[in-house]
């Protein structure tokens, strides 16, 4: 949608959308609210673009000192957070944290390499079930299971990646979607190994020797450490020779090959890395819930993770983190709206795509692209 028309049409469209659920009066209230928001945005953007743009700060534009300061504040805040949250909210935050790492993992293949993968959650399932089985049968320690889960998912990624990565675009999306569904159906039906629809119960919680680390606070710090690790590694990857090659491949595969980039190997590498991250978090998920069942690994979960990457800003590490937090925490915050919260969620996603297609905190390249 172009020009000013979108500011007019968007509130009307939202109002029509909610009408069947809220009756006319509710729809009019929504219309008024959306119109006011839209008008505010329009005024800000047209009269004071210099004010409106920094309203969503660009990390790249901050100086080194500001960045370090922000980072320290963020770390302190994250470390102190469990002190001021009740058990329920802590649980939500841990879930959000798991998704943050998942989104960072998916970002490697979708954001950097530009390959649309729709069955990402299958690798998460491999990690989760891998730990579930190893823990219930062999009492494998959680911390040993972390690398093993990642390795299992990596192998699954290799298995799927080698034959399918010569496909481009839509075709790859369809194959990965199929893989995700196959994984879920296998889990649902292989009663002997996975317990079928009943899932697997009594999975061991994290512990070092006799020291149990299964409380929500402990899980919080484990997940926080994994977020820090994933953010560090992916942003380093982003700014390396390999990261450049991945982006070049996304931009123009033929030209990338002519520059001596072996795109087949690079795709397999990106795929395996993404899968390994998902496997790692699958182990954390299984340990957190101490129960896994196929219901946790539906297509919807894959879509959610993908939305986090797109909403936050493809290929941008801070953006993806923000996107994941927003998509988990906001629906929880809107729980009071009951069924409407998914409606609000959908409307917010569409509004984002209209008004800020580059994502919340776009990567430097995309900022340049849409800013000029």
């Amino acid at each position: 949608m172009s020009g000013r028309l979108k500011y007019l049409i968007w509130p009307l469209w939202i109002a029509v959308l909610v009408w069947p659920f809220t009756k006319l009066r509710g729809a009019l209230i929504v219309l008024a609210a959306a119109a006011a928001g839209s008008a505010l945005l329009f005024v800000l953007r047209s009269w004071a673009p210099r004010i409106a743009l920094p309203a969503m700060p660009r990390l790249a534009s901050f100086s080194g000192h500001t960045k370090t300061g922000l980072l320290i504040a963020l770390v302190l805040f994250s470390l102190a957070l469990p002190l001021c949250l009740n058990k329920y909210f802590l649980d939500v935050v841990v879930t959000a944290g798991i998704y943050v790492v998942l989104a960072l993992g998916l970002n490697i293949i979708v954001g950097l390499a530009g390959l649309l993968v729709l069955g990402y959650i299958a690798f998460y399932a491999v990690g989760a079930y891998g730990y579930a089985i190893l823990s219930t049968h062999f009492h494998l320690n959680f911390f040993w299971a972390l690398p093993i889960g990642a390795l299992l998912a990596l192998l699954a990624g290799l298995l799927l990646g080698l034959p399918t990565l010569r496909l481009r675009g839509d075709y790859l999306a369809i194959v990965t979607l199929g893989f995700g569904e196959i994984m879920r159906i296998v889990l649902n039906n292989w009663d002997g190994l996975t317990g079928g629809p009943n899932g697997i119960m009594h999975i061991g919680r994290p512990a070092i020797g006799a020291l149990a680390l299964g409380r929500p606070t402990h899980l919080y710090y484990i997940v926080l450490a994994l977020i820090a690790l994933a953010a560090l590694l992916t942003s380093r990857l982003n700014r390396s020779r390999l990261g450049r090659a991945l982006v070049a491949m996304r931009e123009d595969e033929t030209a990338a090959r002519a520059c001596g980039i072996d795109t087949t190997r690079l795709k397999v590498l990106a795929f395996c890395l993404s899968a390994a991250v998902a496997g790692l978090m699958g182990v954390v998920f299984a340990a957190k819930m101490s129960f896994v069942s196929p219901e946790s690994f539906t297509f919807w979960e894959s879509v959610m993770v993908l939305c986090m990457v797109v909403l936050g800003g493809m290929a941008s590490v801070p953006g993806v983190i923000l996107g994941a937090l927003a998509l988990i925490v906001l629906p929880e915050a809107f729980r009071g709206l009951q069924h409407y919260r998914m409606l609000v969620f959908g409307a917010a996603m569409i509004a984002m795509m209209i008004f800020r297609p580059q994502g919340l905190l776009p990567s430097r390249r995309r900022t340049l692209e849409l800013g000029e």
Partner: protein
Amino acid sequence: MLLTIERIAKNFGGLAALSDISFGIEPGQIFGLIGPNGAGKTTLFNCLTGVYKPSAGRFTFEDADITGISEPKVAQRGIARTFQNIRLFKEMTVLENVMVGRHCRTASRLWGAITRNRKTRDEEREIRTKAAELLAFVELSGPEDHLAKNLPYGHQRRLEIARALATEPSLLCLDEPAAGMNPQEAGELMAMIRRIRDRGVTVLLIEHHMRVVMGICDRVAVLDGGRLVTAGPPDDVRGDPRVIEAYLGKAPAC
């Protein structure tokens, strides 16, 4: 000979796009490849650089058989190319585009990227320096941080050449670099191609601009209908009746 092309043929189904092409390129030459539209010039480029596998024949480059090897391996061997319709990494900056060209001459891998050890940092610095140097060579030093797609057309052509040079080729294949350029830009391009040759890079050039071809090429090969019409110094080729026929058609029989 730097590159020997022996009896190369390429068929697409029943269509013979190339048949029985043979010629050789000496090191240090600027070699022109001309011919009317559809003569098979770009197909020959694509066979040479690994985009297509030739149906028959052999490419020998620096005494090694390189027939049918993949594009990345061709680049590794030292053959770089540009494309007829410019193919830049549009959403990357100008500098990054050239840095990607260094890919096949650098080695840091996943471990280096993650740990960012001294070796990787040194290599990264070297990539950056070399890329900046090449941008200076093609006179594109100003807009290093602009996105490639925002460059004017002529600059995009030069950027593509800089990216190709970043792979340190011994043979640079340019596919119609002067297309869409005005006479002044074409003149500047000719000067640049000479400077590239003076760096020790052999140049294989597909071109339609006769002035460019005749002005800078040491040797010229003429293709028509997938066959080699003739090859030789530009002055001989210019007067060859078969070349005139290929471009202008047969003289009417009186």
